[in-house]
């Protein structure tokens, strides 16, 4: 992934901008005037009680919900935007193996007809190795544990070389070893220049992983920096 040129810091590195974004579900206003920048290399935790509008915001960012007012500006092309759904959203009876799921990350760049060649398969193998999935390569998704499945899903986003990554509660129903692998991989992806947004519940994981948090409460968003030892890198303009 080519590092982005540094024109003026905040301008060039911002991959996603929310400009007084308001979103509604049906005719119920859920979020009002949410502002924020998501820079390359940062991990943002999206927190809030159930029904606070986390999923709504994710839908808004994904372009699935049209804003009532304000807008979402995304500098990342579709092919480099990735999405890790909650596991419950997946159809686990679908006959697909781990390798096929990982390789489907090529789809946004390859489209319907372009062949997945040896370089892609080599990359797929490397991705699976990095996630500790080689042993399960040919196993159907329905026979995996929650943790293995989550690794496979993250494998798809790695394959996609995602620059903007949204994850919805990636650590739910996942074993401790997988949590470590996932945190490690996400940290590396951020270091390589991706902007990552994670819907999270666990406070401990939040402090370990997130550079910043966006807390949603009663329709409004509050930005903050989790207190982490030795962390003073967050620019002041991110905080509102």
């Amino acid at each position, binding site marked *: 992934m080519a590092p982005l040129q540094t024109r003026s810091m905040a301008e060039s590195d911002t991959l996603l901008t929310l400009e007084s974004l308001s979103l509604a579900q049906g005719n119920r206003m859920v979020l009002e005037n949410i502002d924020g920048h998501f820079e390359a290399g940062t991990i943002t935790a999206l927190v809030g009680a159930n029904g606070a509008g986390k999923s709504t915001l994710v839908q808004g960012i994904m*372009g699935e919900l049209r804003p009532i007012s304000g807008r979402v500006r995304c500098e990342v092309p579709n092919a480099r*935007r990735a999405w890790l759904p909650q596991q419950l959203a997946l159809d686990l009876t679908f*006959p697909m193996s781990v390798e096929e*799921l990982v390789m489907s990350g090529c789809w946004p760049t390859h*489209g319907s007809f372009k062949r997945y060649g040896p370089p892609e398969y080599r990359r797929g193998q490397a991705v699976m190795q990095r996630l500790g999935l080689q042993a399960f390569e040919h196993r159907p*998704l329905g026979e995996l544990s929650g943790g293995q499945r989550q690794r496979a899903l993250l494998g798809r986003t790695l394959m996609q070389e995602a620059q903007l990554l949204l994850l919805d509660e990636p650590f739910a129903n996942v074993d401790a070893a997988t949590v470590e692998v996932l945190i490690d991989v996400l940290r590396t992806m951020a270091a390589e220049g991706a902007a990552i947004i994670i819907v999270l519940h666990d406070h401990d994981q939040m402090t370990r992983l997130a550079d910043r948090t966006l807390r949603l409460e009663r329709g409004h968003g509050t930005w903050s920096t989790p207190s982490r030892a030795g962390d003073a890198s967050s620019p002041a303009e991110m905080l509102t």
Partner: protein
Amino acid sequence: MIDWLFSPLLDFGFMRRALVAGLALSLVAPPLGVFLTLRGMSLVGDAMAHAVLPGVAVGFLLAGFSLPAMSFGGLLAGLLVAGLAGSVSRLTGHREDSAIASFYLISLAAGVMLISMRGSSVDLTHVLFGSILAVNGTALWLIVSVSSLTLIVLAAIFRILVVECLDPLFLRGQGIRGSAVHGLFLGLMVLNLTAGFQTLGTLMAVGLMMLPATAARFWSKRLEGLMGLAIAIGMVSSVGGLLLSYHAGLPSGPCIILFAGVVYLLSALFGRYHSVFARWRRRVQPMLPPDAHG
């Protein structure tokens, strides 16, 4: 014996045409059925088969027994019902399957009424259950064209369908609306139902789509396996059903579908995965000593 069994397929023009028609349909209808079962839409196919009827009836009333007219009418009616059901579910928030169910019932009643207004009950049976004698050159061209077109379109949207079945939001993230893919898929299905009704009848056409697909699920857990097996089962059923129909003097549609039905029942009993036998074997396994496991 073998000669006696298979020679009608080669000796008679109408059997040859019916055979080619059946094989062409078996190449594309079962893969569509596989996607229908995977998307949890098994009954939607059935509903759409009924929805095609009034269009076929209007074609019949306007042009008599002309396959192109009846097929075109069927296609329009099917797409109309799919479109209406889609819009009703969007406008009212009801689930799409209940909207489709409502529309196909209206559609079926309208179709039966239209046919009985003008035609005889023989015509009605013919449209509902098909007749291989009616597969003439034009009909064959139509069927083969539809199969070829479906195969090409299915190849073009194959990866999208797979991605969408598993995780619709991934597709949405790439800026592709799931509803467009869904619409295209329903369109393909209606096209194949109308192509199939000549040999199989409107009510039976969906059988060649669903039964091979549901039977294949007892034998494979892989998508390509499901597709290949479903096609093979469809082809075997077409040939077997046609021969049965010829030798026993029975209507071809029910024969082909019953043949596929027997394959399904055998698969459900003895298939490799999830069948009655497979489950029974899995249950007794823990009783064996550890070294008896193979």
